[in-house]
């Protein structure tokens, strides 16, 4: 235990299951939690939709809300939850020195404008001129910023006044891993004292589904547990809207301001494993083994449902004596937010001194001990891997 240990002092999470850390704990610590699903709007794709959110509770100015598309609003809202939970919301001095690491997607395009261009393209051949004509006249000028990757962080600065620094990582699940890994490493090395880190993903937009489906990653027609995805129905991923933000601090910094941490974050491991070589499972085992040899160990898995990586991860978890909880069964795949969400759920189990009951009673085993440490994993549906050990602070 040392002064520069990295501790988690604030959690903000949102998913189809509800708003905030407490709501998630209440739901997930009871047996038999059921997914919230939207089977119609994006059929044949099932998604886990956002719950109802009163944005103004975290983004009071209507003008600010209007400057963001849903993804940015969701992230800014959830960052507010984390700051509030950490007792930092409205603390001007501490927010002004607070660093920020955001994992961002983007690209919430104007569906109506795009469709109008696609339709018009069928009757004319001068597509490039068509693009100029439509985009110059139809695009809302502020849309560019409202869906631009680094503007989630920008909006967090504007709304919550977090202005120490602002770094945006991109690249699907790996961006969420890098954001936490970098934030934790900076704190450990004394390069930062407190960091807001997290991500948001809003799947309820056709382009968000299109990106997965360009490589056939989605499961169609019906929901099933992340451990029982059917290759007859597609690639195995079912997506969800959600977000996770954490306040990370050095132990010394949290003690100075008298905050009781949820948990501590040990080393964060990340990798770019060659998937074609067929060694994904073995390499994941090396990563997991480097973090903890404990058996049994509770593992909060961010498995996406994509067939190959999900099977590789699952077989590693089984081989190494993990009691696994695959939260994507209940929340859907949260893309950039997947790893921050896994770490948040792990920290809640540590704080409450209790493991989650199984999320899938056919494919997960009970864990009755009080967890002293919890493994959080995220294996990207297409690339990149990350893990960390969350332990009692």
């Amino acid at each position: 235990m040392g002064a520069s240990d990295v501790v988690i002092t604030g959690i903000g999470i949102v998913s189809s299951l509800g708003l905030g850390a407490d709501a998630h704990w209440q739901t997930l610590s009871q047996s038999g939690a059921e997914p919230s699903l939207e089977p119609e709007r994006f059929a044949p794709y099932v998604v886990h939709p956002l719950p109802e959110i009163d944005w103004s509770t975290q983004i009071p100015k209507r003008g600010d809300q209007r400057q963001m598309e849903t993804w940015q609003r969701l992230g800014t809202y959830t960052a507010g939850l984390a700051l509030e939970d950490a007792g930092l919301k409205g603390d001007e001095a501490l927010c002004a020195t607070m660093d920020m690491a955001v994992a961002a997607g983007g690209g919430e395009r104007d569906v109506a404008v795009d469709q109008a261009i696609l339709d018009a393209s069928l009757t004319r051949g001068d597509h490039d001129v068509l693009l100029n004509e439509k985009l110059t006249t139809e695009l809302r000028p502020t849309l560019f910023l409202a869906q631009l990757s680094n503007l989630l962080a920008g909006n967090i600065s504007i709304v919550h006044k977090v202005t120490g620094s602002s770094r945006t990582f991109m690249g699907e699940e790996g961006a969420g891993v890098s954001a936490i890994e970098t934030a934790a490493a900076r704190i450990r090395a004394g390069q930062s004292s407190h960091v807001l880190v997290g991500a948001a993903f809003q799947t309820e937009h056709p382009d968000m589904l299109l990106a997965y489906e360009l490589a056939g990653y989605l499961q169609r027609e019906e929901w099933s547990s992340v451990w029982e995805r059917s290759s007859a129905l597609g690639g195995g991923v079912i997506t969800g809207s959600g977000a996770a933000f954490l306040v990370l601090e050095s132990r010394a910094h949290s003690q100075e301001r008298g905050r009781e941490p949820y948990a501590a974050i040990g080393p964060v491991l990340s990798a770019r494993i060659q998937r074609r070589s067929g060694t994904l499972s073995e390499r994941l085992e090396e990563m997991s083994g480097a973090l903890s040899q404990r058996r049994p160990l509770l593992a909060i898995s961010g498995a996406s449902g994509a067939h190959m990586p999900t099977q590789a991860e699952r077989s590693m978890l089984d081989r190494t004596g993990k009691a696994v909880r695959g939260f994507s069964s209940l929340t859907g795949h949260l893309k950039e937010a997947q790893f921050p969400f896994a770490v948040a759920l792990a920290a809640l189990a540590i704080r409450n001194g209790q493991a989650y009951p199984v999320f899938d009673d056919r494919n997960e085993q009970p864990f009755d001990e009080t967890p002293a440490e919890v493994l959080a994993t995220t294996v990207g549906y297409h690339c990149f891997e990350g893990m960390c050990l969350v332990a009692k602070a």
Partner: protein
Amino acid sequence: MKTTDSFGRPLVAVTGMGVVTSLGQGKSDNWKALTEGRSGIHSITRFPTDYLATTIAGTVDFLPESSRGASLLTFTLADLATEEAVAEAGLPLSDFGGPLFLAAPPVELDWHHRLALYARSKREGDWRSLIEAARQANEGALFDETQFACIAGRLAEKYGTLGLPITLSTACASGATAIQLGMEAIRRGECDRALAIGADGSATAEALIRFSLLSALSTQNEPPEKASKPFSKDRDGFVLAEGSGALVLESLESALSRGAEIIGLMRGCGEKADDFHRTRSKPDGSPAIGAVRAALADAGMSEDEIEYINAHGTSTPENDKMEHLSLSTVFGERMRELPISSNKSMIGHTLSAAGAVEAVFSLMTMREEVIPPTINYENPDPAIELDVVPNVRREAEVATVLSNSFGFGGQNTCLVMAREAV
């Protein structure tokens, strides 16, 4: 030689650099053009300019990939700069042995590909037919365009960088942030070297229109090479451009021990976010001032020790005014005499690449003892009293440089570089 700084941290050297801009491929061609005061800005030929208010750009048009979409061009630009940098550093081209930090634009599925997919679909007037066509097509290249991790993944594979390659975006400060992340990793002792790249090949019609709708671009289309005029009274916006810069960052100790040539040192970096507005800076300039001061403090240097400033200098009315205000606050009266020039007067604004491209040029300025000019400086803004090294290069011994990067979303990142270790 001492290999740690005044804070006891490993000093970070630069041992290899590569660059591509509209002026050409490689340091040699770029430096010749820059020091001759030549502009790379030209009329757009990549796509038709009907309906567009701005018809000029600093696109990189001389590569086979130039017309094949933003994602592929961004990769190619990064690849070419990296190859030059790694070769200069004398490191193996396929086994870099350190982490990768890539500043890249958030690119989306190219419109040509979206239209082609739709043409193949059932065309039922709904996005569903587009997704169904995408699923049927199952084309890896199209999928790659939608995955932000893809470009860095390919570079990591090719150059043998270690670990999960990081892709980042801090808007127009991205290139500087990539360098900063590399410096910090070396200072933490996580690695002996890091590859920092900024690349941007995203000057599509839609990108141009988006910036145009924000009134950010110059519309002085004739003649194109005169449009970018930082610090001039009649400046009216930036010129959208493409390019890439790559730097091999290495702990000085590691560089010396393998006998590598030291091009210069990354002495400090600093940042400060702005909470005022999405595209405008706080009127008092305090975030930019904070970023400059943080970079100086990180370098363990005082204002007096900076000998040249590589400006952000976008040629927008707002940026140049605020940059002047911020620098005058930090450097005081001395700011009137301290040389400052904007590479963007010649290469335009290379967006995600700018911080890295301009770091390469800053290091060359020290090494070659020549300050590239700010061209098109014919009508000085009387409210901005600066020595912008107007129109013609200046021979000067420069030991230290401050390079500024300020971006949309309140991103402010500054780098301090030095010629020598002490």
